[in-house]
């Protein structure tokens, strides 16, 4: 009787024993994170040298709470070399009922990786570009509440050119790492749709590429101890339409190239990170339309390029507390009708956005981070009226932010 009892006890123990903190490798993993934030905006100052022509864009102070990000992930190792991954993203307190924020299918891909030197992903994926592109929305990994400008996806409603600087999606990527002693060489090549995606569903189903062109891109990187550096390139062709009332600007399959450079280094408790992106768009592909008809007599003296750079200096003040200062800036040129007699003259409008910021991130535990950040956003625009009259606009606004990032 006693032996049977002991035997039952052993069987029950063996059956029910689990080890802390683990799942079997082939289980479906569900995990995610969210970031809840509070932002206090100062009033927006507005200055121009032509107040009789340029309407003021002064804004009063405002504040808001929001769920900046909620991301849910599903991942599963299908077999030793196959892995599936899905990423759902909700932004800005998403509500379909109230038309707030957005819900995105951010990633859906399958990966075959037989070795560290080679792997391939197919499906909707975030391409490798510079240092931050793949992790720009991963709030537990970043000390920022407001990210370096071109990675701050919440701004794309206000600054249409944000998505010109970094590739947001690709569909097929091969990547891997080669090692030589202590040095690791990373590579990634990818392709995907052009940026000309149907939104209306009128001429093509929404979400479909409306052209027969592709995005091509890649990154070569090097890692040695705590140093990481890389160079990234992309190329695609963009259709664009700008409505300037009487005149419209149409760019048909305009070649668009991006060159990115990234660098990061950890030295003791100090971490340095920086990136540069040069955007090149071929303005020769512009057609000027008046009342829908092409205008032949056009003088072009404009660029359609842009550049972005940012740098951050972060101090691991304690095991839990990080302090940082950061500066990001972007310059973008876009065409503007400066005069119409005797010819239609197109000049630049040059826009510059600069954002110095300071902040802190306190890691309460492995899952919860409290963040604080203060930034000042300065916007300058320079253009010309009637070919000769310079017009300048300056706007600035500061933002104080507090946030909590939770990983689960």
């Amino acid at each position, binding site marked *: 009787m006693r032996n049977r009892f002991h035997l039952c006890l052993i069987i029950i123990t063996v059956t029910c024993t689990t080890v802390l903190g683990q799942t079997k490798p082939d289980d479906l993993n569900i995990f995610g994170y969210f970031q809840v934030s509070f932002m206090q905006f100062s009033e927006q100052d507005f200055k121009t040298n032509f107040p009789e022509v340029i309407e003021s864009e002064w804004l009063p102070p405002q504040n808001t709470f929001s769920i900046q990000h909620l991301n849910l992930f599903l991942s599963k190792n299908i077999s030793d070399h196959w892995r599936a991954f899905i990423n759902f993203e909700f932004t800005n307190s998403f509500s379909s009922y109230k038309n707030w924020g957005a819900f995105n299918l951010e990633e859906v891909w399958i990966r075959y990786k037989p070795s560290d030197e080679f792997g391939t992903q197919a499906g909707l994926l975030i391409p490798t570009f510079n240092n931050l592109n793949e992790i720009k929305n*991963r709030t537990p990994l970043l000390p920022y509440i407001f990210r370096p400008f071109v990675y701050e996806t919440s701004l794309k409603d206000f600054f249409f050119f944000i998505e010109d600087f970094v590739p947001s999606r690709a569909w097929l990527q091969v990547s891997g790492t080669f090692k030589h002693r202590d040095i690791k060489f990373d590579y990634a090549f990818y392709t995907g749709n052009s940026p000309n995606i149907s939104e209306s569903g009128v001429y093509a189903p929404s979400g479909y590429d409306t052209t027969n062109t592709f995005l091509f891109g890649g990154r070569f990187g090097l890692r040695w101890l705590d140093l990481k550096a890389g160079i990234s390139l992309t190329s695609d062709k963009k259709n664009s339409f700008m409505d300037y009332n009487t005149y419209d600007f149409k760019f048909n399959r305009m070649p668009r190239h991006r060159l990115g450079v990234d660098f990061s280094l950890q030295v003791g408790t100090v971490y340095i990170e920086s990136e540069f992106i040069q955007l090149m768009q071929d303005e020769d592909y512009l057609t000027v339309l008046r009342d829908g008809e092409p205008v032949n007599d056009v003088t072009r003296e404009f660029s359609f390029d842009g550049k972005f750079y940012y740098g951050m200096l972060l101090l691991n003040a304690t095991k839990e507390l990080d302090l940082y200062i950061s500066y990001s800036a972007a310059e973008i040129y876009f065409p503007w009708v400066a005069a119409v007699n005797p010819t239609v003259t197109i000049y630049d409008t040059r826009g510059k956005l600069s954002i110095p910021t300071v902040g802190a991130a306190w890691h309460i535990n492995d899952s919860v981070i409290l963040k604080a950040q203060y930034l000042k956003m300065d916007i300058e625009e320079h253009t010309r009226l009637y070919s000769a009259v310079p017009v300048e606009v300056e706007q600035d606004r500061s933002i104080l932010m507090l946030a909590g990032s939770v990983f689960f």
Partner: protein
Amino acid sequence: MKYTIIFFILLTALGLNRLQAQIAVIAHQDVASDSITSAQLRDIYTGDMTFWPDGTPIIVCDLNDEQGVHDKFYDFIAVNSSRVKSVWMKRMLSGKSDPPLIFKTGDDLLQRIAELQGAIGFVDEKNIAGRVKVLMIIKTATE
């Protein structure tokens, strides 16, 4: 006199034993390596080496104990354990790999490594039983 000498020898041996603890890096019996370098260990525990030479995926096991074995191991491979957490979180959130399996005790880690093909971990050498392959012995000084 003889007993005094024996007494002092034993005392010295005990003292030396306390000065040197040993960590065993262990793996599943079928792993296609019989030894490992510190550079490889560093790559494994930072996610840069994810396959054994025969193509079997590496399953990384971490010991989060209170006896200090965890800290001594990460000192040996010269990686800050906070940074390692950040590295694995990045890999997990970008879909590249699962994070290490974490165990509170050496016995639990040992049992799991004996069961999981491709698994690697580390324990106090005193805990080793014969069910796993020892790839390296790390000698560390105790305080």
